[in-house]
């Protein structure tokens, strides 16, 4: 099993949710986060004083899937989140040792 983590632009969340549902993914965890990459932040002006605001609002998605679904998930997120401009975000994938469904106690891929 793998966990796919993606940090995307907040306004693309709905699109990503739809492409993921289209790829047969029915669960995800979403967090509001702040961050920056090469895009850096943005400029704000108050009473003529200009400030560089480093952290832009982002959304972080976490999806745990069986190994053979990883490519589909990555493709769905890439399709849904892309605007072809700087700041679209990143995806990374890590192995998952165990998954347990709390209600039934099922373990492994059955719990996904």
């Amino acid at each position: 099993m793998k966990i796919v983590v993606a940090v995307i632009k907040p306004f693309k969340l709905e699109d990503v949710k739809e492409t993921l549902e289209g790829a047969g993914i029915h669960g995800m965890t979403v967090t509001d986060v702040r961050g920056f990459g090469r895009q850096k932040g943005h400029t704000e002006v108050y009473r003529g004083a200009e400030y560089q605001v480093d952290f832009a609002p982002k959304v972080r998605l976490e999806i745990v899937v069986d190994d053979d679904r990883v490519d589909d998930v990555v493709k769905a997120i890439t399709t849904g989140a892309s605007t072809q401009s700087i700041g679209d975000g990143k995806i990374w994938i890590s192995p998952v040792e165990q998954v347990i469904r709390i209600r039934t106690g099922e373990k492994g891929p059955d719990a996904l």
Partner: protein
Amino acid sequence: MDTGDTAFILVASALVMFMTPGLALFYGGMVRSKNVLGTIMQSIFALGLVSVLWVLIGYTLAFGPDVGGFIGNLDFLGFKDVGATPNDALAATIPHVSFATFQMMFAIITPALITGAFAERMKFSGYVLFTALWLIVVYAPMAHWVWAPGGWIRELGALDFAGGTVVHINAGIAALAAVLVIGKRKGFGQGAFIPHNLTMTVLGTGILWFGWFGFNAGSALGANGLAASAFLATNLGAAAGACGWALVDARKERRSTILGVASGAVAGLVAITPAAGFVGPLPAIAIGLIGGVVCAWAVGLKFRWGYDDSLDVVGVHLVGGLVGALLTGVFADLAINEAGADGLLAGGGFGLLGKQFVAVGATLAFSFIVTYALLKLIDATVGLRVTEEEEVTGVDLAQHSEVGYSFSESGSFTTAHQATPSAGAAQVPASEGSGI
């Protein structure tokens, strides 16, 4: 006594009172979220503290019978003889107590204006002591000089309709003294000191604009043509100020900002304050516009000269007050108010302008020197500034044990702090107490 005048001044007093909560929101929105309550507190608590002190001692020092042109005597200590009968020397058509209460509201907002300068780093105890003493040693004498019969600036013939010198220049120069004594916030000129809620600031601007009608029109002390004229001048000052600042923004930043428009409205209101009852509508537009443009430039001075005036009390109230006081000497017109004088453009020559300079100079010197000395004294005794750790934490939690915005319900109840029950009262266990 005139019932119409009395009704009007009672309402005007309530309008001026409402400006202080408006100021609390105006300032509260401009600080970082960790300091929102401490900032609001410094305006709201002035309503409590100054109201009481005004009755006890402030009013008599400001408006008691004159002693040497400098201060009032103690005839009105504790509002003694301040009742329903008008005082002919102060306001002949309204109860003396209405005049004294109207003036109370001015005395409240003036020290509250200063708090914007030292926002985000002042100790609450230092603020309380400062506000109490400043009211007595700076505000009361200034109000006496300018507004009380026998006060030397009033006798000189300088004009200040609703408080350009007494309120705005006085608070603005005291703000400069304050930031020089207390020093910069940690990270000033480096970190992003960004307003946390400008919607709050804009609401505060609206309340200030609304309350200012009481401030300026009420200063006619009667429901009459002069009040109506001052009412219009007030609105035009705010309006033109908003336009002026927006123009500077559009030229300099290539966009208009809501904080600029809000600040411009306040700057225009400050500038029109001394002139409101002496000028017609067109000069009022000119004064507001110049106030907005000049203040939009002046708020940049703190970065150039390196003083940390957190919320631009110097840039808006001192500079806007100076613009208004001096332009009163230019635009004042006897055709608007026969108790005033003709300024430069109304054919009065430089006479009035010269008097305005004297009044402004005296205000700057007196308020700066006394405020500076007062703050040094408080700094050496109870202290002015929170610790560096408290400043980083935020004054809300560090000074008041509260937060403005709570996003967590995690935690547990510890102790109910209850007032000691009076003798014989039933002891109610904390777990059963229903509170009030």
